[in-house]
């Protein structure tokens, strides 16, 4: 481990006199003295307090309305119908009423929510094939073994998209109607596009290369997932570019939630035409639901959420309150430390000098 002797002469083996080797690097030595620590505590407390207050004020301006429609209103019959798996293919629609007392100003976001649905189980989350969803033809016909038992159907035909995640897609659909002053219900226009991350829509999910053929031809030789009513290339009959793996509802669903209670974006209010140019006016609304998704097996609940957003997200009371609590705790610690320092600090003060 000795140093290679490069230099000749009597002091050949003398170590270099560099600051690094002699451990004499200039150092900044922040001492935890009362003069640095206590003010920084007060400062942190103040910052948290300001942030908390600001966030709280911002949150107050948001509006949010939630409606659990699992068995509400006319959906009760659909709920009962879905209890029986043999009725899965039969359509069922219902509607629920949603009164809005104060207008929702600005952009309004429409979410559907599920409770007690475990999208975060390991085997569930693994049960997908990203290679297939990015449009690799090899994977399209040979889904990954992780997809089992939703890799191939009884006839050994590969499933596209394979896996438990895709198979369990949330397939209720909603139409929001506004019952304005003129009596006749008016359809609330929802933008169903642009609800995914850019990278998801453009990188992570791709259809297989068309090479001149139609989408249906490309998916020829694959089967739809067992719980689906229509194949993946016919998911959105209204928009031909929104089919296949790049269907936005599919993409949103495939982005698995971290917790068993979650909500996912369904659409955004289109504010192009009155009366929705400023958001949702107050009044009575109803939601018509194509009730397909069964939740009674796992004692789940379904809900819709309408909300406006702020710069830091939706109606999130956790952050402002957490900041305020933190602020007061730091303040408490700071005060205790100050008292300690005041009481026992006399000699401490001398020492620092």
């Amino acid at each position, binding site marked *: 481990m000795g140093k290679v002797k490069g230099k000749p002469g009597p002091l050949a083996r003398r170590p270099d006199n560099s600051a690094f080797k002699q451990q004499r*690097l200039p150092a900044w030595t922040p001492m935890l003295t009362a003069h640095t620590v206590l003010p920084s505590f007060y400062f942190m407390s103040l910052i948290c307090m300001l942030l908390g207050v600001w966030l709280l004020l911002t949150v107050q301006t948001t509006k949010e309305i939630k409606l659990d429609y699992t068995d509400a209103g006319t959906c009760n019959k659909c709920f009962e119908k879905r209890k029986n798996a043999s009725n899965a293919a039969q359509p069922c629609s219902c509607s629920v009423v949603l009164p809005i007392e104060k207008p929702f100003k600005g952009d309004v976001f429409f979410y559907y929510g599920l409770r007690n649905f475990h999208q975060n189980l390991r085997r569930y989350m693994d049960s997908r094939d*990203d290679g297939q969803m990015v449009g690799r033809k090899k994977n399209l016909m040979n889904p990954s073994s*992780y997809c089992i*038992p939703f890799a191939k159907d009884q006839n050994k035909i590969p499933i596209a998209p394979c896996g438990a995640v895709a198979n369990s897609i949330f397939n209720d659909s909603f139409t929001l109607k506004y019952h304005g002053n003129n009596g006749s219900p008016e359809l609330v226009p929802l933008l169903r596009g642009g609800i995914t991350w850019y990278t998801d829509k453009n990188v992570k999910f791709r259809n297989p290369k068309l090479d001149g053929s139609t989408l249906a031809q490309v998916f020829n030789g694959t089967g739809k997932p067992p719980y689906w009513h229509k194949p993946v290339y016919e998911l959105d009959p209204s928009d031909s570019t929104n089919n296949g793996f790049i269907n936005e509802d599919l993409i949103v669903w495939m982005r698995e939630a971290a917790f068993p209670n979650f909500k996912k974006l369904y659409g955004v209010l289109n504010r192009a035409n009155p009366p929705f140019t400023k958001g949702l006016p107050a009044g009575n609304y109803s939601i018509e639901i194509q009730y397909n998704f069964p939740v009674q097996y796992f004692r789940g609940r379904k809900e819709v959420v309408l909300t406006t957003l702020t710069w*830091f*997200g939706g109606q999130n009371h956790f952050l402002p309150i957490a900041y305020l609590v933190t602020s007061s705790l730091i303040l408490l610690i700071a005060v205790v430390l100050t008292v300690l320092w005041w009481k026992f600090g006399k000699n401490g003060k001398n*020492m620092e000098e």
Partner: protein
Amino acid sequence: VVLQDNHIKTSKYNIFTFLPINLFEQFQRVANGYFLVLLILQLIPEISSLSWFTTIVPLVLVLLVTAVKDATDDYVSSALYSFSSECSFVLHAKGVCSKFSPIRINADILLLCSSEPYGLCYIETAELDGETNLKVRQALTVTSDLGDITKLMNFDGEVICEPPNNKLDKFTGTLYWRDNKYPLDNDNMLLRGCVLRNTEWCFGMVIFAGLQTKLMQNCGRTTFKRTSIDKLMNTLVLWIFAFLICMGVVLAIGNTVWESWIGRNFQVFLPWDESQRSAVFSGFLAFWSYIIILNTVVPISLYVSVEVLRLGHSYFINWDRKMYHSQTDTAAEARTTTLNEELGQVEFIFSDKTGTLTQNIMVFRKCSIDGRTYGMELSKTACVDFSFNPLCDRRFRFYDSTLVEAIKLEDPAVQEFFRLLALCHTVMPEEKRHLVYQAQSPDEGALVNAARNFGFVFRARTPETITLCEMGQAVTYQLLAILDFNNVRKRMSVIVRNPQGQIKLYSKGADTVIFDRLDPSSEDLMYTTSEHLSEFAGEGLRTLALAYKDLDEDDFEIWMKKLLFASTVIENREDQLGALYEEIEQGLKLLGATAIEDKLQEGVAETIACLNLADIKIWVLTGDKLETAMNIGYSCNMLRDDMNEVFVVSGHTLQEPLLEHILLDVACLCKTVICCRVTPMQKAQVVELVKRHKRAITLAIGDGANDVSMIKTAHIGVGISGQEGTQAVLASDYSFAQFRYLQRLLLVHGRWSYFRMCNFLCYFFYKNFAFTLVHFWYGFFCGFSAQVRILPDLSVFLKDVDDRTSLRYPGLYKPGQQNLLFNKRLFFLCTLQGMGTSFLLFFIPYGAFSVMVKEDQQAFAVTIATSLVIVVSVQIGLDKHYWTAVNHLFIWGSVTVYFAILFAMQSNGMFGILPSNFPFVGTARSCLSEQSVWLVILLTTVVCVVPGLAVSFLRVRHLQQSRKREGPQGQNLRRVRRTSSRRSAYAFSHQQGYGELITSGKNMRASAVSSAHSPGRTPHSSNWIENMLKRKNEVSCISDESGDRAKNRLPSSSTEPELH
């Protein structure tokens, strides 16, 4: 006799055995084995929760790095060893031939003949037993005339001897030659490690070579040293492993319960596998999955990081200029890289004496002549100019010109004083280009050399004459008798007839002995001289009193006849001679006293004082005599008269096994322990004893081959390099040129190493727990299904790189060896902090995400990982007291690298290559552009850091206060002036018998002897070797006894020299 190859093999591996042996050794480590098991587990798809390469890549990396390090270590050490054994190739030709003295003997050799008359051969055995005096070995008379090469070629003797053993002072064998049997004993042997002196050449027959030599047999076994932190780490790894199992069990039970209550209902969307027949089985699988996921609590990088940290420290030790000795061009060297932090925990130091504490150089420092002292403190006055004396030794220094003036004024007392020094000794002169003295002890050499410089040059001797050059004039004295030194007499005298025809007796010896035999007329002078002696002793100098006596011609004749008669009797000859000597050494007239400094290595006393302040106990283990050892003890401040706890023990006592415990208990009550007359093996046993029963970290320091065994035994072995011999250095873990560097090695480097290592470990465990337990918490929300996508492999890598190096720079010089910085309690605190952090790290984002718009699992993972990196970086920043450029670089660098890797792993390109392995594509981009995520990160950081900050603030203040209380201790370092009693004695390393050797003329060259051959003396001297041997045993018995006595007297204040 079958000759063993003299090559000593110390390397562990060769090319073919390297891979299997090294791998085997590495997998013996608990951690490596554990990772291997993990790896196997991950190959089972039902369990595998992480992809297999996340474990195998680091494991292979670890194995590779360690293997390369082992290989280089092994290569370097074996290269060094083969170099050292090369110089002994001559020995294969069954002989040693030296034209230059001194030469080092490299095998155990039977002496056949030598350049000196009677096949005598002088050796120094400092390497073997630490004694510095010359010893004599003699060839068998039958072989002593084999000096001629042709005769030697025809030598066909055969030796039957004992098997190789480690007894340095015993040898039994028989030489069969020309149909005769000749018994052999230790006096015919030259052992490996001794140095040939005053002998031009000698021929010998190799008896033992290589590992069979007595020295190597004494070296003890090389054992692999592990630090206590290593052991602690192993224990902790086991604990963590148990903890891991517990977590696994908790989560597995959770999984079972969950599956049977909730998961059962979820089968519509996620049917159970065929293999997963029941909830219990699912729980069983979940257990293994969690073991894999949570394996990062015992991270693979821990061991490698620790090794790298140590390696870095070793380089800092190598690079330290303050441990570089420019005279010998030796830098300190950390020869093992694995023991650094133990340097900060040393409680016991075992030190060799000769060559380690002392330079083995005696210097004539002061004298008292006729009631006047000469000699000043060093550097107060200019050095005396000896240019008036053409024969002076240029290296001699004396700092008092008044003495030279007194000489020039021909002050009779001063002249007589130096005449005595020039006459009364057993030194042999050698005049080639310069006058060189061959003294059997360095003390005597120093005295004669002093006389030489002051103009009383001892030039030549024959058995009957001594020729001096007194102030430029040659004067020849007739040597009538030498009254030799022995340990009981503690003095020696010569009787000479000066050219004027007067007969004079010159005597030098221990002050008490001389003062008892003084003429009443010297009484006044005795009191003054006595005062001076106390003064000298107070400075740690070795003193001798000098006296002379004029003899009456007739009385002398009568006495001489008695002497001749007495020397021929067989029985009680010793006693009779002693009585006769006593008879004539009466009524002496005091001349004065000399003070010799046994030169310590530079800064020894200060170093010892400083180490004592740091509560390190220093034991001196030496093969040398009791008196010498104690003298050194006094001069290096280890012994003082005001000390009540001194323990001096000799080697013979150590042999009794029953005493072990008593010895240890008693010894540990004492501040200072000196073990003398110990063999190398016993040194190791003492170290072993302390190691075993005290559970303390021990350090052994030495320079010679006799220290090898203790250096190997102690937790840390330090070799003093740059002196003669490389044995100790080769066996050591650290080496440097001077004893005083020990202070820096322990108190600076050891401290830093320990400090940083502990900080590092604390931080490491903190980080790991913080990191891993997040998964544990998440288990409660994902049905205990062992889901992890919380970026498992990212942050582990990063954090190790940064703190390892950054921890290397802060450093606080604090002496003190409390091993409190990393123990089990602290480990728990660290892990507790880690758990707390992980709890906050999980639940704050959880709270925020559960009400947030985007509650995507991947975004959640990225948020937690980012908060983790930031929290942990801020934490390390706060733990640092020193921020150097390197710290900044690494901390900021690690955060940067984290983000770089984060974005790289989630880039489109990576996804494009392997879509299923990089499913996080775009998450960071989308997630980190959300303001709310940053709000969460900020909140998490503040909440995680504030409690730690508050605690460390309180702790620092507490420390400051306690440090203030202990503050003034540092001032005590100034050297305390000794108030010790006088320790006057003859040159202790002296051996008796040389007087006889000189008067017999045996050691004179043939030419000299033939001219002065005196038949009358022959019978007297024929058996001098036997006499010498007999007396030697006697001496050791005496010191043994005194050692015992010293032990018994232990609690009382011990002023050892008076014991005799």
